[in-house]
């Protein structure tokens, strides 16, 4: 009898837990980090539209930036007045490691911005049909959800390292995918996908060319030996094995690469950095995400390695800035480091696209009650914001269905929002999805962040042109 009671209680507990699960994250306290951080592995796709009614009475958006954005999207000043939503599919990898929640902050800010200040799409407010990826098989599920939603004509991808292949295979020839940040081989090779940013091939390839051809003169030394620590993930593997090593070797630079887990801490990173030979290298080139980048910084400090550091914009994010602040360092980024990105920088004013983005994302964050101090608006946030702005431009110009978006993308010559250089989709036979290739490089010098070779000074790096 006792056994039966225990079994009954255990069964009841499981049933209760099971049923308790259904509402736990959606209710409860006002402070629920789990809700925002919890992985939505199998989250059902839903629609999410920061609607026009949220617009504050006193505009947080400057007239100048608004006018610039209206001109780009081809919309009208003011809020969207329609009620029938314009649905755009949105897929992003977040809720795990690696994960890119900043891309979703960027796209949500774009929806809010377009709906409240740029007149929506022909007066209709944009709604996102969201699907979140945390693992490879989620890509297939997201493709199915996008295909099942008749209102979705075009799918926007934020940043993904997993699930790209099944997502792109599932949607190929049915609905075009606009990739904000192409990072993996399936994305570079996709034939029914379009990226208006140079992605990993542009940035990694561009930085490699920058190190081999231009950095020596800037640093006053011959660049003969480069040490690389790269992420042990699909993007990191491609970045080193396909975009870095062969390019360096073709340019006569010796390169040593070591793979690092995305979760590597300072201890593991210290041994990896030494294994790569950073202490003897002319340049140390970490190709890792922001979490690992903090570990790189700590390990370099511990080991007192003071060689030149060149890295991507992924090391640039708010977490790095917060870490330096906690260490009492009076600079936003590590002194002397070079950063490569899509042509402009969040830290240097003067590009109207980036300026408008920063204003919009902070205004959006304020309406949502997010903490401005820790708001992660950098990294992939800006490019994802920009790609939705470009989609809005195509839609306002008359793209009404999937074929319309394809035609508009192929005809697009730029400029892209927040990126440098011309656009020509399909212009590179090796990477058919990529439409732009130029990048920018900046450097932290003391307390200042300065332009080195980028869109600000009109000297962006173009790996494609440099390598012929």
């Amino acid at each position, binding site marked *: 009898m006792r056994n039966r009671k225990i*079994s009954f209680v255990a069964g009841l*507990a*499981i049933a209760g*837990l*099971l*049923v*308790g*699960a*259904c*509402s*736990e*994250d*959606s*209710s*409860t*306290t006002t402070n629920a*980090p*789990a*809700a925002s*951080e919890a*992985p939505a592995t*199998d989250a*059902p796709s839903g629609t999410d539209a920061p609607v026009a009614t949220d617009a504050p009475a006193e505009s947080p958006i400057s007239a100048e930036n608004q006018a610039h954005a209206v001109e780009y999207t081809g919309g009208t000043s003011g809020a969207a007045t329609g009620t029938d939503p314009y649905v755009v599919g949105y897929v992003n990898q977040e*809720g795990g*490691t690696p*994960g890119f929640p900043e891309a979703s902050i960027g796209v949500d800010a774009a929806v809010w911005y377009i709906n409240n200040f740029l007149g929506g799409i022909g007066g209709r407010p944009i709604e996102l049909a969201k699907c979140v990826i945390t*693992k*490879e098989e989620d890509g*297939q599920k997201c493709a*199915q959800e996008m*295909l*099942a939603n008749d209102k979705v004509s075009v799918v926007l991808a934020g940043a993904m390292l*997993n699930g790209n*292949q*099944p997502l792109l*295979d599932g949607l190929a020839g049915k609905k075009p995918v606009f990739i904000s940040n192409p990072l993996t081989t399936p994305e570079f090779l996709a034939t029914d996908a379009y990226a208006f940013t140079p992605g990993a091939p542009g940035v990694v390839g561009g930085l490699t060319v920058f190190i081999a051809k231009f950095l020596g003169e800037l640093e006053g030394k011959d660049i003969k030996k480069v040490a690389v620590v790269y992420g*042990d993930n*699909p993007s990191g593997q491609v970045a080193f*094995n396909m975009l870095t090593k062969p390019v360096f070797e073709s340019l006569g630079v010796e390169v040593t690469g*070591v*793979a690092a887990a995305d*979760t*590597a*801490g*300072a*201890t593991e990173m*210290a*041994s*990896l950095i*030494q*294994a790569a030979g950073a*202490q003897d290298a002319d340049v140390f080139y970490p190709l890792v995400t922001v979490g690992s980048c*903090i*570990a790189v910084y*700590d390990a370099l400090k*511990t080991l*007192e390695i003071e060689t030149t550091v060149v890295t991507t914009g992924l090391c640039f994010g708010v*977490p790095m800035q917060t*870490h330096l602040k*906690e260490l009492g360092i009076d600079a936003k980024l590590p002194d002397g480091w070079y950063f490569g990105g899509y042509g402009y920088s969040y830290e240097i004013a003067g590009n109207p696209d980036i300026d408008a983005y920063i204003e919009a994302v902070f205004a959006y964050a304020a309406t949502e009650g997010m903490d401005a101090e820790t708001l992660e608006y950098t990294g992939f946030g800006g490019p994802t914001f920009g790609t939705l702005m470009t989609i809005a431009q195509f839609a306002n110009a008359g793209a009404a269905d999937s074929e319309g978006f394809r035609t508009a993308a192929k005809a697009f010559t730029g400029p892209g929002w927040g990126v440098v250089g011309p656009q020509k989709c399909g212009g590179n036979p090796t990477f058919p999805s990529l439409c732009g290739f130029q990048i920018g490089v900046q450097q932290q010098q003391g307390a200042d962040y300065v332009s080195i070779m980028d869109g600000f000074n009109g000297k962006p790096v173009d790996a494609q042109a440099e390598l012929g």
Partner: protein
Amino acid sequence: METLVKFAKQRKGVVAALVVVAIFALMYVTDAKQLAPMFSNVGTGALIAAIALGVVLTFRGSGVVNFANGVVTIFVAYWFYGLRFEGKLYIPPLPNPLALIEIVVNAFNGSAKNLDLPNWPTVIDLPGDRLTLPAALAAAMVISILLGLFLHFVIFRPLRNAPVLAKVVTSVGLFVVLQEFVRLRFGETVKTGIQLPLPKGKVKLPGDLGAIPNNQLFLVAIVVAVAIALWAVFKYTRFGLATRAAAENEKGAIVLGFSPDFLAGSNWVISTVIAGMLGVLASPITNLDTITMPLLIVPALGAALLASFSSFGITVFAGIGIAMVQAWIQYQGAQTWFPRGVLPAPGLVQALPFIIIVIAMFVRGKSLPVRGAVTLGRMPFAVRPRKVLPLTILGSAATLVLLFGFNYDWRQSTINTLVAIVISLSLVVLVGFVGQISLAQMAIAGTAGFFLSKYFSDLPFPVGPVIGALVAAVFGSLIAIPALRVRGVNLAVITLSAAVAIEQLVFKNKTFAGESGALKVPPPKIGGKDFGPNNTNLKVFGLKAKDDIPPNVWFGVVCLIIVVIMCLMVVNVRRSATGRQFLAVRSNERAAAATGINVASAKVLAFGLSAFIAGMGGALSGYRFGSVTPQYFGAFASLTFLAFAYLGGIASVSGAVVAGIIAPNGLNFNFLENILHIDPAYATLIGGIGLIVTAVRNPEGIAGTPRLLAIQKAERKARKEALAKQQEELNREIEGAT
């Protein structure tokens, strides 16, 4: 010479130390730089050693090898992180009675907004900003102690007489539950830049030897101090001696007046405190994440094995040594001479514990300790299949209805269920029939998927997947080789490390698996027609799915046919002489051998057959996604699949079918998500809890529940009748007396 040999035998420790010093000297002379990364990775070694110490303690105290001890580190460290850095106390998921109302309402709600009633809080904001460091550390200590008590009294104490299989799967269930708890409450994003007042600076080593950061030295010092304290306690105190006595002979300890229960509970608490507090202290230099740290259990098991689950000193030495050798491999992997294409250095680093474990097993095989216990319970009952034909027809008809009659998400979850059934069947053969615990089944399945993609995708269906499955069978048979010498928990350890090794050395080998991290699997073609999941235009007999959204319904039919074939194959194995031999080996290997059964060939056959079935599942999985990735076939996936297979019923075909239904992304998930509107993020947690409850209360699994209930009913009836009869006789005697 004789004197030297005698000295070496008597002073093994001194000899080992001399050998290590000699190796270091040789390395210094050849290339001093190769030592630098080794010294800067001792912090990781300290954490591995701490986890290993906990493993040794729980084994000596209660006979349980705790596979979840790596998760214990993050379980405590994350809680500490919340209290110290966020000022928040995270609440575990609790049953909510109001959710029952939500489920009923939402099930009939259609597309309307879901009812959302109040629930337990997920987190409580602490008064003030955040806890002070001493307060947070004290709280972490309390959490560690409570966790240790909970693990002993609620989970492992009821299992003290259970078979090894039950203890291993419970430990696996615990791994899943603790990891899911952390994942759900704290998210999967790595916590970086954690600041604790650890010693700053470094000890600079001479020449090119680099430096050891002081914070890492501090961790090493703590672990060494803990090991010395444990050694002293176990050598000189009554508690320690009693634990050692109980480990040798539990019955003897009871006779001498010791309570094995108290000893086990105390050791559990010490174990969780060591792992938890080291997890907290190591967080600034290792970061906090839900993936890497739990898997430190693999090198920790290697260290514990080298120490024969006994010596604390060797455990610490081995733990730190493994981390140092891993760093050395990393260094060598970056050198030009290293055959990176053939041997990926990161993979070799992760596979090192497997190599160490295999060597330890082979060298010391039979001398490895199998802790004594008072009694051992029986394995789950492997019921002889009955009514096979009607059940097959009924099941197939139901599957066809789901495939043709419902929309894409039901179709997809049906296909996911079919694939999961195949993989669960492989566990039924190996674990259920032969009692060999495999924690590498998904890795084995993956070999078929990867080989299919790489070499056999041009072959016609089903030749390609069958050859892929045969390759998996070869891998499975290779794993059977150590299984000939080791069994029980030792085999579980070796298969877990093998899963990591296969993932790292095969699936992540760029020569084999390419640069992109995923290999494409072209769709299966039958009679020239594309039966792949994305070809929704395919019509056979003029039939196609309800809608044009993938997956293609005919791919589901192909999966169904393979499932039916595999099920019938396993049914026949169970009914045949081979099946009876398997069960005999499971019950008692010596007795089986005495009756003329070739135990070795039975084991090799079981591993090979099981791997073949898993390989078919891996091939189907590759077709399903159009690609194969290391992540899908990783070590965690193997643990999760074992959990659901055990929950479904590990010793029967019907159990595998139930396991497929409740497996991640299967029919049950779809039902929970789309009908009951329950967040599927909780499903794995519920599965883990279900596994623990099943292991403790009902080893037959869900499929065996009706049988168990029938037995219990019959027993109750028999007891009742006996009592009635006794009462009747008593009454008769009383009547006679009067």
